[in-house]
């Protein structure tokens, strides 16, 4: 009786097409946003446990938000458009390094032409967004082979992007402003004169980014373009025969996805790490993002969040449990156990629900709807 759409009549298609047509869902979302936007800052402000220490903000929520954003990007490509990509890390890196260059000033000496291209350091917000744009452009470029290469073959082929850009940012010292170690650090985070420095400020910044992009992404995937992506994913030949252009659909998916991933990469570098090297965007990151999307549920924006939480936070929790309980285990054993348990949970979850958390949630809702009857 708690969760039922009966009695909620929709009289226009606009109402029927809302993100959450059911009132209870809307309320749940409002509560969640309320906690995220008001609750967390308040708690942190009053130093109430567990937000008193920076730990939760800086070590958990910040990476969670940024990786969830990246996962949304990956989900658009993999979950909605069906193009498996293992190169997401590279696109994060492109976002990060482009934003870094733009934020610290671009100088391209064209000696043989007798002049140089110089762009003064751009404001941080603009550099981050342009970083995303750069990632989108490269994304389109690396999306072109997807017209011919499909499935797992494409997945492995996207690794070319991953390794190539790892190498580029290591080797081309122009990108790192000729830092001797190849490690660079972010410019100070000034947003319209506001310096974003404390953990809670950083958290709010990321939260705003994530909320806005999640909303835009949700709009896209439930609109015409989203349907084209899913059509390509589900049956590309039929899609083509009903007039969907694979070129356009796939490349827009690559572009939008890379854009979001690039922005997330810039945030990861600027807001979370502060100082980074290409290893921060290695193949491990790409895989991690893919795991998030699969576990969360392919083709679900909310799934990206749940998946990010599972893949990012669960290992940390598992790792912490023994020391919190005071069980005397060596870190080595703890880590090995963490691996074993984490792996087992992944398998267990998949066996229980091969389509990830998103499906689990929708089945849960369906059960709630039927409650108290089993079916």
């Amino acid at each position, binding site marked *: 009786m708690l969760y039922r759409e009966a009695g909620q009549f929709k009289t226009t298609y606009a109402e029927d097409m809302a993100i959450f047509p059911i009132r209870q869902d809307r309320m749940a979302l409002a509560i969640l946003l309320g906690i995220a936007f008001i609750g967390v800052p308040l708690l942190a402000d009053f130093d109430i446990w567990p937000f008193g220490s920076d730990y939760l903000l800086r070590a958990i929520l910040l990476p969670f938000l940024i990786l969830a954003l990246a996962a949304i990007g990956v989900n658009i490509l993999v979950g909605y458009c069906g193009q498996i990509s293992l190169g997401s890390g590279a696109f994060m890196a492109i976002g990060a390094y482009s934003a870094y260059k733009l934020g610290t000033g671009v100088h391209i000496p064209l000696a043989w032409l007798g002049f140089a291209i110089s762009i003064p350091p751009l404001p941080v917000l603009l550099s981050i967004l342009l970083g995303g744009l750069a990632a989108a452009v490269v994304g389109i470029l690396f999306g072109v082979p997807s017209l011919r290469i499909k499935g797992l073959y494409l997945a492995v082929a996207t690794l070319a992007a991953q390794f190539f850009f790892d190498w580029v940012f290591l080797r081309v010292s122009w990108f790192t402003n000729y830092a001797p170690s190849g490690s660079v650090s972010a410019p100070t985070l000034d947003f319209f004169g506001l310096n974003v420095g404390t953990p809670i400020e950083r958290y709010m910044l990321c939260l705003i980014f994530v909320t806005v992009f999640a909303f835009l992404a949700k709009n896209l995937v439930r609109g*015409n373009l989203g349907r084209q992506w899913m059509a390509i994913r589900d049956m590309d*030949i039929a899609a*083509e*025969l009903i007039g969907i252009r694979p070129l356009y659909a796939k490349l827009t998916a690559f572009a*939008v996805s890379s854009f979001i991933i690039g922005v997330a990469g810039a945030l990861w570098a600027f807001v979370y790490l502060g100082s980074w090297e290409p290893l921060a965007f290695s193949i491990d990151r790409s895989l991690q993002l893919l795991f998030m999307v699969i576990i969360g549920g392919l083709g679900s924006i909310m799934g990206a969040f749940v998946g990010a939480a599972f893949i990012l936070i669960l290992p940390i929790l598992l790792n912490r449990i023994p020391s919190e309980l005071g069980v005397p285990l060596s870190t080595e054993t703890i880590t090995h156990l963490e691996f074993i348990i984490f792996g087992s949970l992944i398998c267990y979850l998949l066996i229980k629900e091969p389509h990830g958390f998103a499906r689990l949630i929708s089945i849960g809702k369906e059960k709630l709807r039927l409650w108290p009857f089993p079916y």
Partner: protein
Amino acid sequence: MRMPDTSEILLQVEGVSLAFGGVKALRDVSLDIRKGEIRAIIGPNGAGKTSMLNVINGFYHPNRGAITFKGRTRAQMQPFEASRGGIARTFQNVALFKGMSALDNIMAGRTLKMRRGLLWQMLRYGPALAEEIEHRHRVEEIIDFLEIEPIRKVPVARLPYGLQKRVELGRALAMEPDLLLLDEPMAGMNLEEKKDMSRFIIDVNDHYGTTIALIEHDMAVVMDLSHRVVVLDHGVKIADGTPDEVKNNQAVIEAYLGVAH
């Protein structure tokens, strides 16, 4: 039976041959489809019927021959030409988008008609929303017409085969085609459902004037619905004419019908 009032030729296939390695799927087949008619293509299994449809909408490229559609002649069709030119189709092995709801599947059929760009869709505001709603109206009409209201939001993978076929027809109708190619739309249906399907086909043909090319193995359906029938066997056209002519054609009886129906 009422014949279509025009004899204008919408599509003409001339001398088309198609081979896959050693398999000759089509051998020098010519046929025409007149505007407004229901044209059936029949023949034994593996005769090349589906291949013919694939040639018409550009999925297969014939080795030889020419295709004239709406007055333009070309050696082969391209899928985008076909879809933009107003050719829609359903598939023999249901080719729905499995992960999407019935509604979304049909909405996808309207891709060609939707104009708003990426940025508008991202905001889903103003013109983008208006466009979405406008097309939703059209799609709801189709849903209503096909009587699939209750399954609008069900993921199509969960639907029984028969309903999937209907959704697929809906998707094709959403394209508002001039020429509708139906590949065994009634396979796997019982009589009642076949009747429904027949009704839909006739209504589409009558009310919208849509030209229809139909492959079907149920002879009763074919004979009742179609204006003209072409018969293929082993890639060769062996007969072409009104249902009655075809029914009594000796070659057809031997190759396909067996006992006279």
